[in-house]
């Protein structure tokens, strides 16, 4: 028997972080976009324990400011792509409103630390969501195109092929026959 599951990554991560912080008895508030406000000073020893505890789940506490901003940009984009209500909003204004920096600044920081641009990251992430839906749902490409705000199924196929070098149908066949 095979069961298919759908994850809410955001909820999973927040729950894990909350549990670990509670285990270590650290008073905190978790805000959106991967920010945790620690209420009291955090002793170095506890900080190390927290680092280690979160690392087991693949969660990393970011140390450098640029890295932090890049993670927040990615997080905001991921949210935006999954949220159908936001599809009419312009990415640049959405990002600068959400993060309180000009888009020019965000775009420079992003390109300087990720070897890619915000636009290219968005395409890669969008194609990743298409892949996920091809593998885990029975949706047709037309339905996926609509959900992810492609203007047409041809546009989706074109971007998929250009990004991955494979057509959606070849990709689907490979994933189905794999392992």
């Amino acid at each position, binding site marked *: 028997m095979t069961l298919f599951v759908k994850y809410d990554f955001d909820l999973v991560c927040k729950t894990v972080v909350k549990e670990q912080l509670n285990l270590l008895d650290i008073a905190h508030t978790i805000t959106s976009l991967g920010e945790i406000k620690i209420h009291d000073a955090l002793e170095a020893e506890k900080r190390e324990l927290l680092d280690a505890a979160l690392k087991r789940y693949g969660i990393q506490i970011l140390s450098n400011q640029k890295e932090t901003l890049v993670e927040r940009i990615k997080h905001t984009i991921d949210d935006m792509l999954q949220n159908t209500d936001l599809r009419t909003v312009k990415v640049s204004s959405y990002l600068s409103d959400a993060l309180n920096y000009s888009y020019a600044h965000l775009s420079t920081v992003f390109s300087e*630390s990720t070897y890619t641009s915000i636009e290219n990251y968005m395409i*890669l992430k969008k194609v990743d969501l298409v892949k*996920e839906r091809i*593998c885990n749902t029975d949706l047709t490409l037309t339905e996926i195109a609509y959900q992810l705000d492609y203007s047409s199924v041809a546009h989706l196929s074109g971007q998929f092929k250009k990004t991955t070098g*494979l057509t959606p149908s070849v*990709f689907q066949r*490979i994933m189905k026959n794999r*392992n």
Partner: protein
Amino acid sequence: MSDMLLNIALADDDEDDRMLFSEAIEEIDMRTKLSLFNHGQELMDYLTLPNVVLPNLIFLDLNMPIKNGKQCLKEIRNNPNLKDLCVAIYSTSSSEKDIEDTFLNGANIYVNKPNNFSKLREVVEKVLQLNWQYHTSNLNKDTFLFRI
């Protein structure tokens, strides 16, 4: 630019191809460390050393003596310590069957060896960037599949 170092391995029996690949990597503006292997068995011996620092990305030629790329790929995917490594097939073959076969056996990226240096530099850079995104972003590694 980020200070994370990318460990890369290449297994290819052709000396010229190894040399060109090293030169291409050197020209790319990313912090990398390249290890070279003359054939598949040499690579596998290295990967299974105790306490080895595993590469972030492996380039595998398909046709090699002693142990070919396809065999290496299968061994990597069947070894619990190695199965999550990112593997890029790096071959002159552009037969659809070879390409699909390697994907079915768990390759992440299929690269056709380009026939000139500037193109080579371009595709290697593209693979490195893709691999970087998969290491640093919330992208699904189970569907990490690209043909370049």
